[in-house]
């Protein structure tokens, strides 16, 4: 038999059509159609036969949902093996493809199914099927992360061909925001054999999606549309599109370059017969220009022009960040991410290398959670290949790896990771002998790295080179070598480049001037990706100015619109560290406003300024006891009397927290807080807005809050209790169903000997319910909670 690879992409091949629709027609549709492989063997084999007779090249096994998440407790081995046997019963020359669909549960962090759990579920299917089928089709995915997980499960456990399709809608992306080009980039880099779209819409509505795939996907493209969108009537799906109209658009797709045609919901053997007219035709050649591209799940970022990589999540030389990583206070990192995105970074560096921390575990956690907070693609930055692998594995998109170098061992460790996870790699022009002095030597290492990548099957467009910035104060003559090397790499190797810019100015006065001057020189020599602090206005302005002066009219407009005003030279550094706090400022001048008034009105920037002002004349404790606490009491009383409402209460609390933060810096260590509270939304609940309100209120009263987040396992709460010795534990639940989880959590904690009082709150809780689940206390809202805790600690 000719292999799939010998035909795929050369001659047009035909997939079968809908399975559910055929089951419905035969009156045997059920909730778990995969069980029909055991109970209704003849009908299942007959459906396959009807598609074989219609002329398909590929038969899809009836295993779409045969996974342990959708079918817990079922004998999957039996179901899948039977499905394969039935697909083979009438086959002649057709390839049997094991069908794998989504698991029906959203992956963490949006949902609660972890990547590893999902991986195990897919792997189980792959192991059962791999020796009995000709390949796999991963289809109807709407979440890129889940599809990546499924593809890894196939690639890591067998070497059969694998096709992947996603479902896009008329917005031009999947339900989770992934565009066809993002999907194509990741799937192609990770080694899918054919890539496409299925289900979704009727063929005509798919035209823009198919066109985008044809433009960006360098692998054979597969298209399996629905027979339009059905009306549902008394449990039946009613479709109106005819096979003739269906086939007409499919023929257009074929002429445009689609290599594999098939059908999804609503199609039947007549539809497949109609499109089988294209079978065996030569697939028209397409020209796909590959660029250097990284992505998140929702952002496609070609690394061309100038792209800013935000350097703020890298502990080198940043004391606060180091501390945050040591304490696993990732909220601090996430806020840095948000700040950089607001400051128009294009991607973010993530480096968590702090001694005595588990950088592998931390990288996994941070990469996963950042995906919920920022849409920007990430640069996974570590000298530890295990941390790089953790970052790449759990990242949702095409990451940039920083870095590989000219050392052979290093390449042997990093390139297989890049290959498997489809990453772009940044190569540093150094090796065992350190950083060479001349541009020529650095260029030679760059060449060696690019060749090394090629030997692992990583194409040149997935490589970038960093020619390494040296400090002007210590090695002044070498600065120009970095720039010369940049020019050589850009011109002769044709790859994109990166530099960590601010290294150049260590030990120099007015570092910013040196940095921005060097940045301009580097850009003029071909630099693509400066790694800088995007919150620095001078640096960002330099980029805008550079682009504007290069002559593109759009860049001139961008300069006029985006340039950040820097009033005087003296103000420049301050103007740079900017916007978030300044966002909430009053129209009144601080001098006309009291601190109390600023806090009450939720004016963050004013509260900060006025606290600093107050500290000039008053000792810190007096500012707390004589101004902030009475203000909070007043705000609380207004809230209870319904003179103010939730948004105002929160605004005031946030402003007060800012004031406390200013005062905290006056004390030597971070022990200035009143007490510690551990907060968590219980397992099974992802609605954490109530818990976050409690957090803000407690922080405004000067408490240290350990926030364990949402969907928190009971074990994590116990660990936090041991680690932080809190004064109180607060649990939140939104729904009746999650109150059960709360009860379980409390029973577990008490059983484990936790003696810290456990308080509960949330929309459905009442005092009676709280007693029933053996909570130590209940309060109706955040304010009552903090007041209760204040009383206890008195």
């Amino acid at each position: 038999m000719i292999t799939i690879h010998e035909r795929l992409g050369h001659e047009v091949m035909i997939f079968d059509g809908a399975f559910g629709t055929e089951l419905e027609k035969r009156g045997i549709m059920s909730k778990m159609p995969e069980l029909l492989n055991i109970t209704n063997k003849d009908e299942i084999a007959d459906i396959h036969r009807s598609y074989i007779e219609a002329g398909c090249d590929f038969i899809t096994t009836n295993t779409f949902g045969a996974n342990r998440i959708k079918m817990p407790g079922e004998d999957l081995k039996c179901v899948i093996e039977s499905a394969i046997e039935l697909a083979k019963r009438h086959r002649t020359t057709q390839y049997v493809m094991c069908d794998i669909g989504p698991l029906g549960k959203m992956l963490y962090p949006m949902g609660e199914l972890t990547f590893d759990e999902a991986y195990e579920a897919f792997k189980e299917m792959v192991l059962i099927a791999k020796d009995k089928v000709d390949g796999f089709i991963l289809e109807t995915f709407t979440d890129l992360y889940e599809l990546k997980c499924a593809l890894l499960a196939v690639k890591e456990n067998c070497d059969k061909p694998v096709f992947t399709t996603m479902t896009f809608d008329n917005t031009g992306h999947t339900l989770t925001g992934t565009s066809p080009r993002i999907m194509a980039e990741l799937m192609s880099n990770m080694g899918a054999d054919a890539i496409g779209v299925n289900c979704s819409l009727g063929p005509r509505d798919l035209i823009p999606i198919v066109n985008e795939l044809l433009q960006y996907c360098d692998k054979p493209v597969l298209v399996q549309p629905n027979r339009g969108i059905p009306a549902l009537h008394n449990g039946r799906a009613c479709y109106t599109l005819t096979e003739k109209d269906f086939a007409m658009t499919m023929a257009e797709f074929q002429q445009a370059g689609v290599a594999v045609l098939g059908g999804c919901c609503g199609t039947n053997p007549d539809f497949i017969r109609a499109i089988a007219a294209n079978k065996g035709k030569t697939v028209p050649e397409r020209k796909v220009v590959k660029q250097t591209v990284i992505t998140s799940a929702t952002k496609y970022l070609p690394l061309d022009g100038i792209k800013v990589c935000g350097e703020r999540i890298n502990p080198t030389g940043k004391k606060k960040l180091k501390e945050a990583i040591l304490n696993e206070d990732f909220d601090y990192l996430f806020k840095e991410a948000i700040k950089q995105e607001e400051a128009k970074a294009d991607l973010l560096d993530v480096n968590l290398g702090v001694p005595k921390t588990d950088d592998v575990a931390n990288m996994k956690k941070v990469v996963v959670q950042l995906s919920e907070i920022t849409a920007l693609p990430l640069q996974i930055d570590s000298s530890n290949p295990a941390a790089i692998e953790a970052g790449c594995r759990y990242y949702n998109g095409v990451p940039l790896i920083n870095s590989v170098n000219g050392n052979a061992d290093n390449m042997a460790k990093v390139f297989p990771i890049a290959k498997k996870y489809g990453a772009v790699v940044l190569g540093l022009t150094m090796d065992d002998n350190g950083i060479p002095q001349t541009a020529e030597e650095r260029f030679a290492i760059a060449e060696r790295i690019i060749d090394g990548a090629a030997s692992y099957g990583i194409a040149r467009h997935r490589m970038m080179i960093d020619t390494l910035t040296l400090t002007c104060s210590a090695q002044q003559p070498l600065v120009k070598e970095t720039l010369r090397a940049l020019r050589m790499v850009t011109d002769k190797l044709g790859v994109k480049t990166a530099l960590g810019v601010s290294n150049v100015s260590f030990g120099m006065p007015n570092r910013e001037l040196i940095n921005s001057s060097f940045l301009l020189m580097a850009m003029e020599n071909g630099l693509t990706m400066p790694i800088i602090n995007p919150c620095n206005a001078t640096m960002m302005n330099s980029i805008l100015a550079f682009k504007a002066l290069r002559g593109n009219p759009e860049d001139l407009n961008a300069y006029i619109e985006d340039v950040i005003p820097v009033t005087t030279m003296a103000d420049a550094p301050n103007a740079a560290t900017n916007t978030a706090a300044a966002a909430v400022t009053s129209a009144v001048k601080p001098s006309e406003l009291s601190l109390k008034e600023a806090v009450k009105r939720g004016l963050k920037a004013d509260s900060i300024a006025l606290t600093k002002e107050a500290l000039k004349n008053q000792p810190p404790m007096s500012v707390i006891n004589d101004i902030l606490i009475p203000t909070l009491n007043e705000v609380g009383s207004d809230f209870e009397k319904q003179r103010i409402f939730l948004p105002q209460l929160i605004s005031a609390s946030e402003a007060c927290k800012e004031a406390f933060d200013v005062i905290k810096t006056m004390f030597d260590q971070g022990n200035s807080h009143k007490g510690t509270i551990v907060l968590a939304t219980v397992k099974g609940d992802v609605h954490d807005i109530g818990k976050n309100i409690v957090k803000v209120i407690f922080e405004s009263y000067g408490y240290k809050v350990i926030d364990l987040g949402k969907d928190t396992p009971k074990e994590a709460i116990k660990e936090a209790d041991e680690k932080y010795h809190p004064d109180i534990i607060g649990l939140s639940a939104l729904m009746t169903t999650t109150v059960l989880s709360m009860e379980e959590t409390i029973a577990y904690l008490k059983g484990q000997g936790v003696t810290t009082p456990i308080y509960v709150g949330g929309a459905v809780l009442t005092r009676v319910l709280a007693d029933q689940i053996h909570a130590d206390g209940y309060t109706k809202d955040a304010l009552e909670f903090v007041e209760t805790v204040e009383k206890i600690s008195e």
Partner: protein
Amino acid sequence: MRVEILKYLGYQQNATVDAQTESLIDRALLEVEKLSEFKYVHAFYDYPQDFMLKHQAYMDYLKGSDGYLLCATTIGIAVDRRLKRLQMEDMAYAVVFDATAGVYVEHLADEYEKKLPYNSLGFRFCPGYAGTPLEDNEKIAALVKANKIGISFLDSGLMLPMKSMTGIVRIGGESRKSCKDCVAFSACAYRKRGETCYSQPQLLTPNL
């Protein structure tokens, strides 16, 4: 929509609305509208489902109707993502955004239902009303294939995206919202002050 949003935020009869909250609502309305990807699927039936037969409240609601639609609707996952991030940036606005998004999905669903080609559709009856079980959300979702518009369920029965609903819409007949069979009847804060969760409070503000 503004009054509904304020009601979610705890504003009651005769409360005065402050300018700051109003401007947060303005901002949230714009942003929620921009981020929303409204989707709605429905299925027509002229006979009751098994799960409906177990609860008189469903049958009361459908009394005298000429069939009904099951529906599922959502404004999409981008709203959830934004809310997550806002909670790190600005909690006061996050709370307003959350309330606005909740009201917005109801509003769009109402508008969508007005355009459906059926005469005299009733109000949307969602699982949880009148003591009906929240678990029925999943049953309705399966029947209308809500997974096709991206709705999934956590083990606890919560829906993702968070601003999603399933419901039943009666065709013809009539029935009004009532507190009669509500689980919260005895403890309801709205009732205690003479309001209902489905009535609109009078608020004091120059802009409303």
